[in-house]
């Protein structure tokens, strides 16, 4: 009988129509500005720079090694290394990015910069409502816009951030232990060679030994 298939289809649409009033399964729309889809932890969008502590300028983990700039497939990252050094979160002297721009109109959110970063300083953000009137300047993010705190990182990617923090804590403990050891050694040396005239040169040596600790989070 012609029409059976048509009637079956009509019944199916009627079921969906009625179902949309009773079941969330059949009414999947999310009313965007008021309602938002639940944040999925692994979600990624555009990169941002993590800083520790409260001061974005001071705590920035990035040391301007420029690996991400080199590895970025669409070449959307632009970094200018600073001339001077400044102490990072652990107090070590490091280069820092004088300029760090990401053109998110070019970025394709591939996450390769995150994978290659040896300092855990660039991570993927989840902000997606980035519409802008100016498609050139408005979508070129500068260091100030990119820098976001470690706490923020912890809220958007808790698992991943916890692992990074644990890793950092371990590294810092190691560094602290090494510094302590060095200081003890220094103290011992000072005590031992209090009368020694070459004490000054010893101290310099201890400093240089402690040098790799800051960059040793690899």
């Amino acid at each position, binding site marked *: 009988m*012609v*029409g*059976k*298939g*048509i009637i*079956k*289809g009509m*019944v*199916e*649409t009627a079921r*969906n129509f009625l179902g949309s009033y009773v079941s969330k399964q059949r009414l*999947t729309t999310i009313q965007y500005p008021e309602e938002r889809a639940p944040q*999925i*932890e*692994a*979600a*990624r969008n555009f990169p941002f720079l993590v800083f520790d502590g409260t001061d974005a300028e001071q705590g920035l983990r990035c040391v301007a090694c420029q*690996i991400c700039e080199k*590895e970025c*497939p669409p070449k959307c990252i632009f970094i200018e290394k600073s001339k001077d050094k400044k102490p990072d979160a652990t107090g070590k002297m490091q280069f820092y990015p004088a300029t760090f721009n990401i053109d998110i109109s070019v970025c*394709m*959110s*591939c*996450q*390769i910069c995150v*994978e*290659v970063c040896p300092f855990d300083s660039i991570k*993927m953000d989840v902000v997606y409502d980035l519409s802008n009137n100016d498609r050139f300047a408005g979508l070129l993010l500068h260091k100030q816009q990119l820098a976001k705190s470690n706490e923020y990182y912890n809220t958007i990617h808790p*698992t991943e951030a916890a692992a990074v923090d644990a890793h950092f804590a371990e590294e810092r403990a190691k560094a602290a232990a090494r510094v302590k050891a060095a200081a003890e050694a220094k103290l011992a040396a000072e005590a031992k060679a209090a009368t020694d005239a070459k004490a000054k040169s010893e101290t310099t040596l201890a400093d240089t030994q402690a040098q790799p600790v800051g960059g040793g989070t690899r």
Partner: protein
Amino acid sequence: MSDATNLTAQIDINTIPALGKEQLLELAMGPQHPSTHGVFRMNVVLDGERVMKLKPVFGYLHRNHEKIAESETYLGSMPYTDRLDYICSITNNWAYAIAVEKLAGIEVPERAEYLRVITGELTRLQNHACLLGFLMQDMGASGTPLMYAFREREKIMDLFEGLTGARMMCNYLRFGGCRVDTPAGWMDAARKVVAEFPRFLDEYENLLVGNEILMDRTQEVGILSKELAINAGISGPMARASGVDYDIRKVDHYSIYDRFNFRIPLGERGDVYDRYMIRFLEMRESIKILEQAMRDIPDGPIVDPKTKIRGFRPKPGEAYGRIESPKGELGFYLVSDGALNPYRYRVRPPSLINLTVLEDLCIGQNVADVVVILGSIDIVLGEVDR
């Protein structure tokens, strides 16, 4: 295909064997046309509503993919492959990863293979569901089947987002494995989605499979003969709808497909209806594979620890890696000269090669059939134009 002079759109009307030539109407369908699946143009010569000649014009979405890949690192090309067939990014990754793994001789750990199969088959599900929706949309079903398909695709895309971080551009596979392991609870969520998927298929079947209008529109329309399918190098569901028993999962035994029990549906007539139904049946087979894979997946590492992220230089040589992508045989041909970037990089896009028979399928058909036939070929312009 790379013949750039081919892009001139004019059709020589004298090549058409018909009387009353002054009554022919040349119609440019596209590039701004609602149902050309992207920016695609068909110059159609019509006699009344009958198609006398058809000339596909493409390249509007050309992005120089292959040349860019030749100046990019091996890993750097991975996210670009996402953008080939943007509906099934993971299978694109997979074909490229297989090519590079062949080139560099990298082994893939067991768990990673399982993850690849799971994500790959999920991709097949979403591709086929979307295709059927789009096909119905082309037939004018005012979006209902398409919205149902998108509703299901949404669930799969949520899974992808949970695993890889992105919904469409997953960039998930790495040479020698996968990028990340499944987060806690992901596998259960995936099992739930797969378990619910047959319900959607039943709904679809009710809605359309027995529908007389659909059968009337698709049966005996756009018939692709078995001989032409083989000669034109057609692959994937389109070839199988014409009765060509050719599925690379069975032919190449790549990855771990040997371990799963699944069948390949084959069509007889090779018309639009067969192409539509083959995809429908393939979804049911994919669900079988997914169920088996999710049952058997072992623990273990997900990536070969020897592979380097930076400074990856395969030894000089060449390799061709191919898989059965949802659209057909997707292959990547790579030549390495030992540098950081491939010396030659070439994609065998199934969409493009399946598209080559478009004119043969359309001639003599109605103009309304052209969009249906085009829809049944299942093209994604990102892959056609590259």
